[in-house]
């Protein structure tokens, strides 16, 4: 029998309510595979509130504590403090939130958690919009993307603003550890998760999470699109440990961003000129990342 390349144990159960092909499920599945049975997950309003299935059922083999949409970082600190006070040292506290709940409404609580140095893992699964409420733009929605609040019509070309750089915001807090991960690369994903277990202090994972209905692509393409995001440098994989940047997946030559964009309905309106502008923005970000890595 060939060997499994990621841990066999499952902490996420079947029967959950995610859309077919949803990557947010894989983010949870991989995070918990890496962390093991001592994880306690605190979950704000997001798709996972619903994916986790309605009362009295639950889709995880570890505890979930629902918290207010904007308060994940605070919930994380409360759980950690309680675990420490009650002598539950082995508990691994995980905040698990969407991009809206992290980069927009929950940014203050996240900043608080990072700044006060809570020993915990915060995972932002990034489906690049408010999906649970029906695909509205978030600060993490990329330039040009269609959402229900950034329509494509005579006067609007999708989102007019660029994607908020959440990793830069997190990095500015000098956390113990931060990394980007992508469900298309489970082995790399698991390495990052397992690494968080060896580091004390606040840890952050920015997890790329393709969403078939929200991004308008057929569900079987979730992994392919995830792969393209990284292979085009749209979503580079890197980690920041003790302030040092390291790119964890480096390509000989990146593929054109157009391949990634054209695979998704949310970008189907983009003209060649608009795609070229996005390409140069991606190139610029990649060059900055390389420069940060050389800084050491």
């Amino acid at each position, binding site marked *: 029998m060939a060997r499994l390349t990621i841990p066999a144990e499952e902490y996420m159960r079947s029967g959950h309510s995610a859309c077919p092909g949803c990557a947010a499920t894989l983010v949870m599945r991989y995070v918990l595979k890496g962390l093991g049975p001592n994880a306690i997950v605190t979950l704000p309003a997001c798709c996972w509130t619903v994916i986790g299935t309605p009362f009295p059922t639950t889709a995880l083999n570890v*505890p979930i504590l629902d918290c207010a949409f904007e308060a994940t970082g605070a919930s994380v600190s409360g759980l950690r403090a309680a675990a420490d*006070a009650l002598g539950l040292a082995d508990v691994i506290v995980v905040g698990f939130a969407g991009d809206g709940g992290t980069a927009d409404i929950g940014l203050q609580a996240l900043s608080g958690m990072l700044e006060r140095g809570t020993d915990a893992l915060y995972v932002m699964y990034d489906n690049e919009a408010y999906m649970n409420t029906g695909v509205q733009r978030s600060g993490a929605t990329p330039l040009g993307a269609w959402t229900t609040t950034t329509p494509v019509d005579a006067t609007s070309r999708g989102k007019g603003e660029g994607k908020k750089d959440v990793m830069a915001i997190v990095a500015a807090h000098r956390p113990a550890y931060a990394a980007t991960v992508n469900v298309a690369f489970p082995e790399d994903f698991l390495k990052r998760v397992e690494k968080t277990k060896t580091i004390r202090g606040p840890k952050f994972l920015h997890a790329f999470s393709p969403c078939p209905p929200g991004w308008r692509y057929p569900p079987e393409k979730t992994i392919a699109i995830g792969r393209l995001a990284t292979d085009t440098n749209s979503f580079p994989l890197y980690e920041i440990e003790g302030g040092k940047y390291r790119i964890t997946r480096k390509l000989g030559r990146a593929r054109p961003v157009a391949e990634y964009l054209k695979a998704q309905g949310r970008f189907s309106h983009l003209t060649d000129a608009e795609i070229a502008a996005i390409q140069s923005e991606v190139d610029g970000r990649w060059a900055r990342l390389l420069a940060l890595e050389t800084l050491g």
Partner: protein
Amino acid sequence: MPRMVLSGNYAQSYAAKLARVHVIAAYPITPQTAIVEKLGEFVASGELSAQFIKVESEHSALQACISAAALGARTYTATSSQGLLLMHELLHWASGARAPVVMGVVNRAVAPPWSIFTDHTDTVAQRDTGWIQFYAESNQEVLDTTLMAFRLAEHPDVLLPAMVTEDAFYLSHTVEPVDVPTQDEVDEFLPRRDVRGLIRPGAGVRLGSFTMPDLYEEFRHKIARAMERSAEVFFEIEDDYHRLTGRHHGGPLPTYRVDDADAVLMTMGTATTTARSVVDALRTRGNRVGLAKLRAFRPFPVKEVRQLAATVDRIGVLDRSFTFGAAGAAFTEVAAALYPETHRPALKNFVAGLGGRDLTPKVLEGMFKALLKGDGPEVDWPDLKRRAEVVRHG
């Protein structure tokens, strides 16, 4: 039992310390700051072994306490005014998750315009959030009630959050002699909580799931029942506390000289002390007046209000806040409680003392007199600065 000279704020801090809270999370706001500063000192010096979370807002303070409580920790926070309003969503999260968080609130007016002085708008505005609410008259009551609040909140038949409030500056910054129970006494009264049955590592459980219409309402009704039961449980707890310390503060609606009274004024918080001396003064002049102190606003003491009303013909309710478009909140609650009664006293609402305006003996005496005479509007703002006569233009 040592006697100390404590401000209301320090009475809160000492109560939380004696309760041996596991987790404290709080954010500064005048006039609450001394509560958390003192607790910070206790933790730093090792006198209190607790986790002190330095949160970046009141909102996060309460979320942190709720999450800590879900794991079985005894938690405490304190705030005031704008901070309490910022917490509003989380107040519902606490009761919905049945997290027995205890919170000290210094009653302060809300902006704009800015004011840091006594006013009950902040806590009265939270009356529908599923929190038990006690209003204190003295620093001794602050300390005793806070200790009782922990026991009540954590009681298996209750499991609801509770707030103990004190008037800004009148209590928060005024020192009084306070009898402080010993740690042994408090440990006997309030053992550190048994944490079994809550969220435990390794268990596939979820607290607060998405819940469909066929079950949601039942969970709300459970909160309603728990709130009702808390009224009965509180009597037992007060009796226990009395056995231990010799002090009893008289249930949710203690009364003063009401037996033969023609008119009774109902007050909350520190206005009670002044009103008591006004009752004595008026009685020496032959006016049969009495006083009732609304100590618990949630659950509202319907039974006690009815008992009081059975023998009195005129009741005035003093509200240090106002529900715009209606009347003072305590007044409307009293009126609602008395509607089914056969003997319904005449009711008057006095709205006064907002934003820290002094409720002087003269103002309070005026309320008793208006009650006895039965004149003036049903809802009156008796200490408003009005022009003596109406100025007519042109």
